């Protein structure tokens, strides 16, 4: 630089080098001391707020004790499908804990953010807890609802969220379909007719399961809520006994909400080790206990035995067994133009 005298330029260069060296040395010293705090974002579905609030609290303590590293965990909740689309669109989730495997498959395929074999990376198809679908009615069961068949009676108002945005809603839909298939003479046509009649009794479709619970419990709309078992048990706990009752249907579906690290985001943000540990923590005895206390069915036999009495005994079918897996179920029922679009006409 001709405009700056050589001596001054040399001094500037020397000063810059000194500052850079000091900065590097300071950063190195800091790195050798305490590990740098890390932030995790868990993008989850609607009813898991309470579960992960409790789990996060315990995991933060566990991780600090194990590694000395501070972790801050943020949660994002909404309809499972909607949450999955947000991650594909750029929401920087380190982990996803969604309602259905299909939503994580979409993140893997469309977003290319997760390895295709994600479901095999953790035990039990990466579903650390399970749940099912039950019927939640008001105290005394004024409409006399005992099983799925009662939901299509005239005058019965059914609350369930929108399967286009909610994973829970898709489980509800498939559970009803599975019940219809098991009725005498049941086949896809009769099941479709039954589910169509059921949705004629649905006055409101919320975007997520928690929204539907609020609609039923707090806004007082409807006679029966198709609900996650954990959500129904939580509602009864929150509202106090004597206001709501669970009706266990003769058949329901085994819901296996999956979890996964969002590989590309976690790698980019340097959170992969803690993100993986966070999900593995769900499988520990502590994690399973927390899941059970929040009314999710634990996988660990010892914890499952301990909490056995809080879950109604149900005949459970699986998506794989009845529908050939989530991909087929999604294509047949929830894709644009599929069975749900054919049977559900808003406002009619």
């Amino acid at each position: 630089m001709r405009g700056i005298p050589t001596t001054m330029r040399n001094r500037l260069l020397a000063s810059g080098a000194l500052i850079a060296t000091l900065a590097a040395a300071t950063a190195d010293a800091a790195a050798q001391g305490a590990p740098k705090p890390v932030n995790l974002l868990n993008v989850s579905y609607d009813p898991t707020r309470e579960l992960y609030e409790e789990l996060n609290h315990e995991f933060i303590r566990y991780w600090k004790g194990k590694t000395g590293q501070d972790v801050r965990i943020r949660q994002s909740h909404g309809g499972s499908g909607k949450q999955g689309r947000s991650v594909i669109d750029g929401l920087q989730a380190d982990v996803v804990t969604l309602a259905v495997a299909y939503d994580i498959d979409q993140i893997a395929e469309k977003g290319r953010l997760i390895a295709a074999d994600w479901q095999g990376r953790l035990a039990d198809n990466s579903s650390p807890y399970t749940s099912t679908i039950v019927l939640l009615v008001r105290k005394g069961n004024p409409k006399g609802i005992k099983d799925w068949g009662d939901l299509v009676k005239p005058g019965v108002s059914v609350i369930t969220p929108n399967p286009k945005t909610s994973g829970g809603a898709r489980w509800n839909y498939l559970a009803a379909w599975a019940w219809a298939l098991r009725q005498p003479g049941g086949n896809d046509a009769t099941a479709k007719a039954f589910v169509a009649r059921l949705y004629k009794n649905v006055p409101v479709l919320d975007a997520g399961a928690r929204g539907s619970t609020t609609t039923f419990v707090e806004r007082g709309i409807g006679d029966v809520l198709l609900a996650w078992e954990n959500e129904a048990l939580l509602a009864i706990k929150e509202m106090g006994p004597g206001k709501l009752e669970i009706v266990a249907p003769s058949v329901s579906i085994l819901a296996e909400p999956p979890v996964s690290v969002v590989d590309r985001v976690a790698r980019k943000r340097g959170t992969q080790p803690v993100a993986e540990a966070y999900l593995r923590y769900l499988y520990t005895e502590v994690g399973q206990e927390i899941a059970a206390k929040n009314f999710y069915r634990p996988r660990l036999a010892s914890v499952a035995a301990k909490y056995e009495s809080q879950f109604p005994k149900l005949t459970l079918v699986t998506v794989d067994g009845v529908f050939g897996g989530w991909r087929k179920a999604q294509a047949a029922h929830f894709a644009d133009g599929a069975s749900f679009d054919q049977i559900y006409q808003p406002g009619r």
Partner: protein
Amino acid sequence: MRAVRQWVTSIVLTTASVGVAPQVLAQSSAATDNSISDTSSLEARVDALDQQIRVLERLRALAVDSAAAAAKTRQSATANAKDGFSLKSADGQYSLKLRGYAQADGRFFASDAVAAIPDNFLLRRARPILEVTVGQYFGFRIMPDFGNGQTALLDAYWEGKFDPAFSVRAGKFKPPIGFERLQSATDISFGERGLPTNLAPSRDIGLQIAGEASGVFEYQVGIFNGATDLASADGDLNDSKDLAARVFVQPIRGGALQGLGLGLSGSTGVEQGNATATDLSGYRSASQQTFFRYRTDAVAPENTVIAEGRRSRLSPHAYLGLGSFGLLGEYIVNRQEVRRAGSVATLTHTAWQASGSFFLTGEYAGFRSPTPRKPFDLTAGTFGAIELAARYGELDIDDEAFPLFANSASASTKARGLGLGVNWHLNKQIKVLLSYEHTTFDGGAATGDRASEDFVVTRFQHAF
């Protein structure tokens, strides 16, 4: 919730009871069963209505949520006078604007004794402008020019606008020197800018920070390659960079002088030309004829005048908008160290101008063209805005330039320009311009003064 329902039920039942009380009293006890049945029916109907109301309320809330969510992702495509044609995301953080302007001139020389200058029609400027905003802070702008049958990239810069008081711009753009140069070519009142613009660069490549505070104070500070006068430079000839800065204040809030703005700009840097790229410019009259140039020598290149050493510019300037009357004044002093063979000198050129404009139709005469109060509309019988304009300016070449660094037989020592104009602003986009420029010179001819110029420009301008 249940309490509300019971309350509503009790009101309905009470009303019903009062309304039918005489009849009820007249009934026999045999009617009691029927009354219980009626009561149950009413309660059921109230419950059903209550449910319907709740459902409708919820559906309405969901519709509002749905509309709000849709609005967040809905893009808008607009076409208007302010933004031209634009695509914008719902949150306004991403946008693409296509703007531009074109100026088609008719240029006529009433007296062209110095040289046979043909009258001609000319596409003076044809500039598409692409502006993109990416995210909350960042954007870029590209503006080429296809005027005069040539292609040039005038503006190409990235900008981060972090706060009204702090933005960063990098790329090629107008450096903050030369007041009229900073005015858009679509807003000038004459066919060409005045004589002081000769002593400032057109475009330069560099990095600038800028900001403003409450419309009272604005600043720009930047480091640039150091383009020579009038140049739109795409590179530098030496390692040294120029520093350029400007401050502008509008000190009076309210009252007749609230449109008064005072500014000071300057630049400094060390330049190094060579025989093929001298880093020096000639200067032009309003008709774009060169009336001053430094000596060049193709046979003995060492005799070509080159920039060598510091070049500094300082320019106080002011603008006053007094209702329909606007006044612009600027002065610029340009000091340049030059060399020709073994001779060096520091030459100081100066220029100034004062120009005024007046809108017969009452529009405010600001630094930018106004929107006509009554745009041209045949059906409404309105014709737009009419502006009258006049200016006078001078450019004085340092006498030390002659004869060693410039030839007085072909380079003038001084130019004086008088301009008169009338402009018809049909609407915000379209302007028809007529201006007359009379320029006289000292020296610049083999014998005496270069012949004066009488130059008329007509222009049709379309900007969107």
